[in-house]
């Protein structure tokens, strides 16, 4: 031991050299998979802070780019909104001249899903608002993905929602593109079939199905489903049209109940939207 210490003291630099050479040779003697493993392990430890910094920088760059893109979008949408408001006013004037019935929109009241019935297929939901919130039976219910169903029973502070995913809740629908009308019936989960559409009608996969407004219960123009497949039916006279709702009926947590009709002019979205941010962005981007 003393000899080793003496040699180390006398030849410290050479000892270090020999040790490092042995370590290097040891690394070289490792089998290739082990070398790769050691390499990756050391590299991962060494590069972690740099990678973290890179990720932060990348994130900053991404957010910056996204912000630029969104600012452009807001500016474009703001201009588009102004144009649409002018169209709306013009349309209203023309409708009045033609003595059409004044078109109205509906107020959407949010409600939280607080329960489900015990049926395995979950055809009914319980929501936390009822007649005290102005709800009445057969009022349409929507979610972010489109039409969900309608109120089947209303109590003072709760209500039952009968979902579209139920055998006894067909909805009259219209193809948004071709205006072809049919009756949408539930098949399973969120898959539906549009029935009573003639074989010569123009319906294509990817078309959006909207409520037709026929029957007067559910107003016209709300998204219900998207056509997934169109094929001739076995009878040769009609089309077999499969559609899929964008609503996940098994995971609904909040819905909106359409209540009273209000004129478009009183609509919060069109007239009371906060446009100050849009104005700021537009001014900032002006050359």
């Amino acid at each position, binding site marked *: 031991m003393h000899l080793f210490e003496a040699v180390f003291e006398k030849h*410290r*630099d050479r000892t*270090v*050299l020999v040790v*490092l*050479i042995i*370590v*290097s*040779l*040891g*690394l*070289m003697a*490792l089998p*290739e998979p082990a*070398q*790769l493993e*050691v*390499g*990756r392990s*050391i*590299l991962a430890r*060494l590069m972690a802070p740099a990678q973290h910094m890179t990720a932060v920088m990348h994130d900053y760059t991404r957010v910056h780019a996204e912000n630029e893109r969104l600012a452009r979008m807001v500016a474009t949408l703001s201009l588009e909104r102004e144009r649409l408001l002018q169209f709306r006013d013009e349309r209203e004037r023309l409708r009045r001249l033609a003595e059409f019935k004044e078109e109205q929109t509906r107020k959407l009241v949010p409600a939280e899903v607080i329960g489900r019935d015990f049926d395995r297929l979950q055809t009914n939901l319980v929501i936390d608002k009822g007649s005290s919130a102005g709800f009445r039976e057969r009022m349409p219910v929507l979610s972010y993905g489109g039409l969900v169903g309608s109120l089947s029973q209303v109590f003072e502070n709760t209500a039952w929602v009968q979902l579209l995913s139920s055998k006894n809740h067909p909805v009259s629908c219209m193809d948004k593109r071709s205006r072809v009308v049919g009756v949408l019936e539930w098949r399973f989960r969120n898959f539906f079939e549009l029935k009573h559409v003639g074989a010569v009608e123009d319906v294509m996969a990817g078309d959006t199905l909207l409520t037709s407004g026929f029957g007067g219960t559910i107003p016209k123009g709300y998204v219900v489903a998207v056509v997934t497949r169109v094929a001739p039916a076995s009878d040769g006279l009609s089309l077999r049209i499969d559609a899929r709702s964008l609503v996940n009926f098994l995971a609904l947590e909040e819905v909106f109940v359409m209540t009273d009709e209000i004129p478009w002019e009183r609509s919060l979205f069109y007239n009371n939207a906060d446009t100050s941010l849009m104005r700021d962005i537009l001014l900032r981007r002006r050359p």
Partner: protein
Amino acid sequence: MKHITPIIGILVYLALQASVAHRIAIGAVEPDFIVVCVVLFGLQRGPIAGSFFGFFVGLIVDLANPGFLGLNALAKTVLGYGAGRLGAATSPGVVVLFIVFFVASFAHDIIYLLVFMWPHLGSALVTLFTVGLGSALYTAIAGIVVERLLAMLGARVVTTLGQTRR
């Protein structure tokens, strides 16, 4: 600061090697800034620090090609040790420094190629004389340029082997 400077140095020389060396290459011959880095460090800090520095720099270089993990560490450890020993023993001057860089680069290539191409020694020798000599010359020139640039920037450099000044 004593420990930060070598790390910054390594990063700068690695960046030089990765981004500049191949742009100023003449055919297959290009300067080795990492060798310059290890030699300058060894000359300034002595054989022990030089050996450790060479080992770690070599290991970092090896990580880019873990199939030969340890090869650069071995070659650069020897280089750092040699430069450190030399720094404590010999006389100053640009010509000597040029020779030191040249010999260091060539010695590095000898160790590297002999191990890398073992047992095909013929191929190793051909590569050594077709590429190694030119690279050693280019590295020596690059080393002198770097050393002078550092001196102009007021950095701590090797002006006399065995002594340093600001």
